[in-house]
């Protein structure tokens, strides 16, 4: 059963906050991980692995480069769940 988009967004925001200190309410669907949130590739890999653990999904390495915005990541996780 697919996870709800709002639940994934809230969970992702918590992971991003934990890793980077960025306030969870700044993590919005239209935000670009690099350009808006200033998240580097090393933090991104940690966020990806933590998302896999939290949501029980697999995010292949080759997919990570396509997850440019928070919305991209949320939608991928929802569809993979």
């Amino acid at each position: 059963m697919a996870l709800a988009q709002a639940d994934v967004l809230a969970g992702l925001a918590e992971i991003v906050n934990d890793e980077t200190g960025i306030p969870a309410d700044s993590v919005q669907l239209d935000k670009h991980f690099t350009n808006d949130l200033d998240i580097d590739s090393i933090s991104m890999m940690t966020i990806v692995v933590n998302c896999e653990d939290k949501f029980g999904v697999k995010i292949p390495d080759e997919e990570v480069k396509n997850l440019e915005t928070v919305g991209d990541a949320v939608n991928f996780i929802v569809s993979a769940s």
Partner: protein
Amino acid sequence: MTKKIVVTGVGATTPLGGDVATTWGNLLAGKSGISRIEYDWIAQYEVPVTFAGQAAVKASEVLTPQEIKRLDPSSQFALIAAREAWADAGITEITPERLAVEFSTGIGGVWTLLDAFDTLKERGPRRVLPMTVPMLMPNGPAAAVGMDLAARGGVRTAVSACASSTEAVANAITRLQTGEIDVVVAGGCEAAIHALPISAFAAMHALSKRNDDPAAASRPYDVGRDGFVMGEGGAALVLETEDHAKARGARIYAELAGGAVTSDAYHITAPDPEGSGAARAVLATLEMAGAKITDVNHINAHATSTPVGDIAEYNALKRVFGDHLSNIPVTATKSSTGHLLGGAGAIEAIFTVLAIHNRVIPPTINLDNQDPEIPLDVVTSPREFAAGPILALSNSFGFGGHNAVIAFRSYEG
């Protein structure tokens, strides 16, 4: 034209306190920073040594959660110490290209490395943190400090075991003397109170096993000494050309008068019993300082509280100073802090600088029964200097046969 170098800032986090003022106060009060280790692994692995000099203030109480997550504990201590030293120096403007960092560790990010291996074994390679490499590399603390202070004049890491951060201070001298840079933040750190390094040091019988009385375990020069006590923390000094310091009206603690590094090529861990390499380091330091042996009126000794090490250092000093040695008050502050390994030289440099600045020598504790083979004038309660100039040495020696010595002088303006 060689420029005079002065110390204008100090910072530290140690087993005696989370900053320099607390550390120095507790040192003068004769307190011990050594206590029982409360980690579960003490019982889990039946580690033979159950105490150490643990940082009095946890880094997580000072740094942000993200800094804690992205830095090995050794780099956390480095950053805390460097920020305090920088604030203490009060430098508000500097060209980044004229600011350098010399910051050491003896072991590097051992917690990060071993945690990552546990993760690999338990959860597989994908769960190994992507920050593992920059966190475990020995230049990690120097790099963290350099990034934090925006230092672009070169960030370097001397690694020479327990001599590392004295070497870091010595390495700053030439760069400042030639005038290629104006300011160096020099220091060292260590965070190795972990089951593996403790077991490894214990396996070579280097550590005290006085588990029933941790506060009395680090006892340099005492007949009952049975090894050193691991400590952790970080310490940093702001070193500056005199011209630069005076131009901005800085408070000057002392002059960094000289420093030298030599090597024994004798044994990988044992000190040369003749102490000739250590003696050469002292003589080269005095030559750089333009000083005679009779000018020296204080030594902060390496004195780790091992049976052979303390005697070897005495032999080296005797070789240099001869009969004058009995006139020189010596202190062994590892008795209070434990041995900060790669951070030891830097914290002892600060103690030497503060002894000069405050004109009082901090005590050696736990000296109940002085070894008759080491007839030094050991200071056991705070002792004030007589009036007049002070020239003080701080010695550090490391596995690998590394000898590093630095000299500080009272600053007369």
